[in-house]
């Protein structure tokens, strides 16, 4: 969408507009049960099967905080290098909607559980810090379904009360690539922490996007519009691009931007006004009297700090130092926690350089083709390490290894067994090779003559013939050596 190394600017004649982007990411807390009830949170269950009396807001039902969700939010806060607040408050955000059973959403307004923090992005031209304004916990609403019954709206409350973390960035993002990198980094950190599965298809990660524009060089922020509930990086980028251009067009025509909430229509690729500032809801926030303020002492927070695993930034640093990887390679390997685990498993028992190449090359291509996650890979880390060791100790050539890899991809078998069963073991016995080479030489007298008279390029022809005769199993290094001796 935009040139990787170029600044993201909207151009009109000779004028350049800068785009200011802030994101409010809603990340579903990875938890067996909901934020204030013990109902399960499993995705894709039959409608209204994961609903307790509390979730459906029956009379006299009361919320009870799920301590695990609190810990998850704290962990995430630590992962965002953010301040964990010793006291936070749950507020009620009041509005009526059919899929909001209580008539209010329990959220955190003035006193969130997590304060300011930051996320580091690895951009092609270096690192960039994005400020985090806050992280707060809130309940998800249910789902209104309008397209099953022509007369009625149906409501599914399975999601009602599921814990969400709203992570609010500062307006520090300046390009579509940064948005992409930011979402991926947040996702990566949370997956490392096990606090959110980051599954955008299932709605575990969605965002409200704030966009404003200003002439390049200006320091004041322009009036922003908020685009609600965008659920993929691609749509976020499309929405931002459309919205930024829309705003610039208005300014170019001498108009001014109205602060409003907009919706992104993914079919028409445009944003549309949902409500203006004047008809903004008055949510009548006030502290939820059913819940006491959430007080966390430092010991509790410090205990959680001990549970924090190595995060992508640290891991990247370690990979570079320990394994001698390039920052680019390290980045690719750490961005997904499962990939990094896989890499460490393979490299622990085999050659690091080969492991890096095979994972970022063949394995990624395979996963991509099959559209599967590394955790679903038919080739286990153990088997890939075995394959690499077979190359390393000369049992098979790199070329044969690719054939073995393909068989592994289809069968999931141990490479040693494949090599044995298919007889793919590299031919490294000089006497055996000499026999083949002698035969190739005696079968091609004209080419031998031509080679000897100076056609050096024909050397490759002889190598090829030997490989062919050996069904590709001949050790190429040895073939080279023997051939040279025989022909010269």
């Amino acid at each position: 969408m935009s040139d990787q190394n170029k600044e993201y600017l909207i151009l009109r004649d000779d004028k350049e507009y800068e785009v200011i982007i802030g994101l409010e990411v809603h990340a579903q807390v990875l938890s067996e049960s909901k934020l204030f009830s013990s109902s399960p949170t499993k995705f894709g269950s039959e409608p209204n099967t994961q609903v307790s009396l509390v979730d459906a807001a029956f009379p006299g039902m009361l919320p009870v905080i799920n301590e695990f969700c609190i810990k998850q939010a704290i962990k995430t806060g630590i992962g965002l290098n953010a301040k964990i607040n010793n006291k936070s408050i749950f507020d009620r955000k009041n509005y009526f909607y059919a899929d909001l059973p209580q008539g209010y959403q329990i959220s955190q307004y003035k006193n969130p559980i997590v304060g300011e923090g930051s996320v580091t992005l690895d951009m092609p031209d270096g690192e960039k810090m994005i400020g985090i304004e806050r992280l707060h916990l809130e309940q998800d609403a249910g789902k209104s379904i309008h397209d099953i019954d022509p007369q009625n709206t149906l409501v599914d409350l399975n999601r009602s009360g599921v814990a969400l973390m709203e992570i609010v960035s500062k307006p520090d993002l300046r390009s579509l690539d940064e948005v992409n990198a930011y979402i991926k980094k947040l996702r990566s950190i949370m997956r490392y922490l096990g606090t959110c599965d980051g599954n955008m298809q299932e709605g575990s990660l969605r965002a409200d996007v704030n966009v404003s524009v200003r002439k390049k060089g200006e320091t004041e922020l322009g009036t922003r519009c908020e685009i609600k509930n965008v659920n993929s990086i691609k749509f976020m980028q499309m929405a931002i691009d459309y919205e930024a251009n829309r705003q610039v067009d208005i300014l170019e025509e001498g108009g001014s931007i109205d602060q409003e909430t907009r919706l992104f229509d993914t079919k028409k690729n445009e944003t549309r006004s949902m409500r203006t500032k004047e008809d903004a809801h008055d949510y009548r926030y006030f502290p939820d009297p059913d819940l006491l303020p959430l007080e966390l002492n430092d010991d509790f927070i410090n205990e959680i700090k001990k549970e924090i695993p190595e995060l992508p930034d640290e891991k990247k640093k370690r990979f570079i130092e320990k394994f001698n990887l390039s920052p680019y390679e390290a980045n690719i390997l750490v961005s997904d926690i499962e990939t990094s685990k896989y890499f460490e498993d393979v490299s622990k028992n085999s050659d690091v350089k080969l492991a890096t190449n095979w994972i970022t090359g063949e394995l990624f291509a395979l996963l991509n083709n099959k559209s599967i996650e590394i955790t679903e890979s038919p080739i286990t880390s153990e088997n890939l390490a075995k394959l690499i060791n077979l190359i390393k100790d000369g049992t098979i050539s790199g070329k044969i290894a690719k054939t073995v890899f393909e068989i592994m991809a289809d069968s999931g078998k141990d490479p040693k067994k494949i090599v044995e069963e298919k007889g793919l073991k590299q031919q490294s016995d000089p006497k055996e090779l000499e026999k083949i080479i002698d035969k190739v030489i005696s079968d091609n007298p004209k080419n031998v003559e031509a080679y000897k008279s100076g056609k050096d390029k024909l050397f490759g022809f002889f190598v090829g013939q030997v490989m062919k005769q050996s069904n590709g199993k001949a050790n190429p290094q040895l073939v080279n050596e023997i051939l040279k001796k025989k022909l010269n």
Partner: protein
Amino acid sequence: MSEINNLKLCDLVDKIKNKKLSSKEITEAFINRSKKSSKLNSYITDNFDNALNRAKEFDEKPDFNKKIPGIPLAVKDLFCTKNLRTTAGSKILENFIPTYESTVTQNIIDHGGIIIGKLNCDEFAMGSSNETSNYGNVQNPISENLVPGGSSGGSSAALAAKLTPATIGTDTGGSIRQPASFTGTVGLKPTYGSCSRYGIVAFASSLDQAGPMTHDVKDCALLLEVMSSFDTKDSTSVEFTRGNYLNDLNENIKGKKIGIPKEYKVDGMPKEIEDLWEKGIKIIKDNGGDVIDISLPNTNYALPTYYIVAPAEASSNLARYDGVKYGFRSKGENLIDMYEKTRSEGFGDEVKRRIMIGTYVLSSGYYDAYYLKAQKVRRLIKNDFDEAYKKVDAILTPSTPSSAFKIGEKLNDPVSMYLNDIFTVPINLAGLPAISIPAGHDNNGFPLGLQIIGKAFDEQNILNIAYSIEKNIGYKNHINDWWIK
């Protein structure tokens, strides 16, 4: 009236334990009298058949170790009761049958109690006369066309009329103590956090507390023991050592320091109430207590503070009654239309009035001036009590500024109705325990009550003081069964 109906809760427990009476006999007696007393309109829903079966079951397999073994009790219709309709006095819940039991009623059942019915109350407990109920007025058994108080008016009437040996109410701003005072009975609002709010239809969450309503202080101590428990299902429930209130009941108040707050001597207070207060002070002095003048300087602000905080919470608590999930639904053109019709038809005037007040005080631009300020004043009111309790052990005041009034008398004057709660509201704002005990009569022979306010979680102390006053004051309720032909 059967002799059984005249027995108090503790007496009934003794009789049943000594096998002088069976659960069936007792339950039948209260059911029969309840059936004859429909004119009082104290029940919204009865559970008579079921209760009789329960009583028979108890008699077949009695467990006398329970605190209220086989004892029938009718309860305020604000407590959700499993498989038994729970309306909160509102049309919007007219067909609502919970699949769950409130913690307090569950405690009653677990201690051997049998629920014989659901008692009338002001709609969503919003009222001081039981006149806002969708299920009609309740008559005070003391005299015809007299209100029984509210919001636990069905409870106070049923108790005073001996349709139930004891009952439970809820008290958000005086809804137990004021009706107790109006009917010559005892009512206690425990410290906030003593009785679980789980399964009680919420009015104002930070103020609501369930409590016992009984004929005397002994019964009150026993029923409080039954009701009060720590409950993990209510985040505001407090874990503390709950006393053996009945066993530890002690009329000796020698050396106890009792505060008399000057701010409660309001202008225009009827002489009979002033006299009653003096009578209470004299009894305390005669029994060796020290009476100390104190000041609770922010008392004047309690009522306006209450009428901001309570409606604010109520406006949000009642948002769930929207016709979508349960309860009454009116047909609408679309979602908004359905909401408007459902809530317009489903809620009564007083409830709507408070939802509107609450919505207003929470609105952007008004929040700071009303809700936030009210919260600050609430803190000051609590501080007043904290200061006072550095000098005294408990505080004595009248329960209400007047005796029971006529049905209809104040219905169209909400402010005058609200003024009824002037002595009870500050206690809810401070989260403290307080008990109202009958102490005398006005010129019409209508009951008047005295209120003893305690420190947080010091229920035993106010029960003891109430016990001492009760023994010395010689109060008797005059009830002539006028409603039974």
